[in-house]
């Protein structure tokens, strides 16, 4: 169970980066967030009961840090959504990703954890610190919005 922080980074770096970009909406903030999460990981000296616990801690910390990033007032917000997408995925593959990024942050988080990390709504509720019902309603609303944007998409 106990391995070095670098190993944890090898194992979970991509996971955190993907969530960080989904959450912040752009690669640069996502990278900063990734760094912050792992610095916090090493500093917290947290001990984990299980791999699930470790993973949940990282997801939770990513969401937490994203919030503080969002309130950091002088944060450069001058990179446009288009730039971000261009920077994240190539344009022709970006339609689905673009649609997700255009959702509000909390929706993006739920969609990402559900569809990419394949977590259950209960697990998502647990890491986000809200009720299962809230997650389910966020998912339903996200789907509606996505359906509108991605005509004919199947969920």
């Amino acid at each position, binding site marked *: 169970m106990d391995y070095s922080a*670098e190993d944890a980074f090898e194992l979970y770096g991509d996971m955190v980066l993907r969530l960080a970009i989904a959450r912040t909406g752009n690669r640069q903030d996502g990278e900063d967030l990734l*760094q912050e999460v792992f610095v916090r*990981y090493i500093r917290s000296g947290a001990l984990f009961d299980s791999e699930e616990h470790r993973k949940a801690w990282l997801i939770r*910390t990513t969401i*937490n840090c994203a919030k503080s990033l969002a309130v950091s*007032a002088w944060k450069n917000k001058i990179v446009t959504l288009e730039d971000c997408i261009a*920077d994240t995925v190539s344009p022709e593959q970006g339609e*689905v990703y673009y649609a*997700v990024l255009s959702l509000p942050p909390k929706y993006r988080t739920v969609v990402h954890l559900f569809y990419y990390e394949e977590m259950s709504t209960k697990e998502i509720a647990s890491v986000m610190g809200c009720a299962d019902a809230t997650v389910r309603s966020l998912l339903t609303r996200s789907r509606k919005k996505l359906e509108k944007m991605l005509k004919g998409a*199947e969920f």
Partner: protein
Amino acid sequence: MFKDDYKACNDKIKTDEQLQARVKAAMGDRSFRLNSQYRGKMFYFTRVGIPTIAGLIVIALVINFCSAALWVSRIVKAGELKNYGSYTELYEDVADSQLVEGRPQFFGSSFGREEFFVSPPSLYEDFEDIVRPEGSPETPASGNYSGTNIQVEGVDEGDIVKTDGRYIYVISGNSLRIIKAEGAEMTSVSSTPLSFENQNDNCEMYVSGDRLALICSEGEYDEKGVWFPYTVTELYDISDRSAPVLLKTLKQSGTYVTSRMNGGILYTVSERYIYTSAFEKEDYVTYVPRITRGDSLEYLPSEDIYSCVGRSFSTQRQYQVITSCSIAGDGEFLSEKAVLGQSASVYMNAENLYLCMYNGLSSEEKGEATDFSTLVKFSVSDGTLEKQGAVNIPGKALNQFSMDEYNGYFRIATTVDRYTVEKQMYWNGVMPCFYDMTAFLSQTNGVYVLDGELNIIGQVTGLAQGEEIYSVRFQGDRGYVVTFYQTDPLFEIDLSDPEHPKVTDALKIEGVSDYLHSFGEGLLLGIGRNGNQSGLTAGVKLSMFQVNSQGENEEIARYVIPNSNWSEGLYNHKALLIDTEKGLVGLPVEANTRFKYMIFQYSEEAGFIRKGTVSFPTDNWDFSEKARGLYIDDVIYVVFTDVGIKACDLETCKELQAVYF
């Protein structure tokens, strides 16, 4: 299938070698500094440069040009705060910025335009008939209960939990809960589902008499499928606490930034982004901010939209929309303005509202450039917002506490970054193009004193080379600034002579304070993170500084919360409960990967004593979202917004009662 497509997009996102090296270096570097160090522009370019090697030369070049123009934004000219005569004028201004940003600068030809080059941030004048409104800040309502931890006495700030001394109001998930609190007895009075979706955790409220205002970020898709965010303010009549009645819903363009309430008038700031993909001259909705007027949404008149000439191009893509409305009134906006600019920190007292907007880099001079911000001032007499002027200030402000107005003088502390600027040439496949390559050079900090007409009349610069500001607090004639690299100097600045401010002390201690709060005569409370000689270590830290104006400040007490790694109070002052008279400090803490609320008692003799810890039983690693502490008479109430409230004895912190939502 959506899932497969979404997975495929995400699978392409990977940490590359460079990013891996950067994060690993940061993990190994104990003196790692949060946030900004690696926000260096160089990384941005190098990273964008990688697809170039991968063969996507043309795309990369386009991105490079855009980024170059984004980062080294040039000042058009030193100017004033002007408003627009028509939407067409506004459109052309905004369109111009997009054009310039997207356009490769052939052979540097656009550098030739005279107005591109002016001296770095300079001040300018445009102030007619400045009338200072009469009147003093209202005194807070009497009664022995705690309000939200605010910056300026009498000017309330919104939060997710409020009390009026009889009831506790909580934004809990998607409902507004009202709980009657009589000593240990707590009774749930009502739970009203919010009519909008609390989607960003970005909702706050105010309570004033029998009225309650809820402010929240919302948004909708227009017919083109573009997300248009707006800020909703809902006014409720709560004269019957068991059945709040929604009186009026007000909307304004943009996501919610912040708000204040003074004298029953609510001031709300939102940030509206202009999407480049949906931007049409005839289609005002794509670039003109809107507000509720009566039952419909109306465009802000062009004369109420301001542009700070002297801003950089890139900042023209966003508005700060400012409105005022009376919480007791009929729910119409009293006054509304918009300013082109980004990322505002907002300071407001009884008389004025200041927006400090980060502006990017000043024009390059001798291969160097510094960043700067534009400060915009509006007077706020009885809800009427009136333009007073604007000025450019070197550097960037950390947050609202970086600003203060006292005795007619405005003070601001900023961190100034310097960059080297190098002209680079690229072959775009057709012709050579130029852009500016910037690299982080150095960092320094300064405090500036401005008079009522926004002239910089005094300054202290060059504070803490190579460090950046972590927290600021102005207290009358004194200013306290914490900068940080490895250890934490607490600077004391004597501002009693506004034209000649001077540093009177620089106390070096380990760790850093992220929040400063005047704790009665001669005392300053710091809440931050622990550290040693070589940088930050784990642990949320409480410090008490003795500040005696003699230049001999010292840390007289310190408490490091064991196994803690995080507190919302580190970045949001409203999460803190601080009562100077009672010597009380309360804050939410994540420790041992568990979430709890901790209460401390400070006394001169004993220092900080942990009075109590309140938590709710949760699953193994379940975290609650937010927690707030407040007291009414001799009971302290700890609210976990998604879970419930616990009432504890103020003296002993013994748990008296709990209610669950």
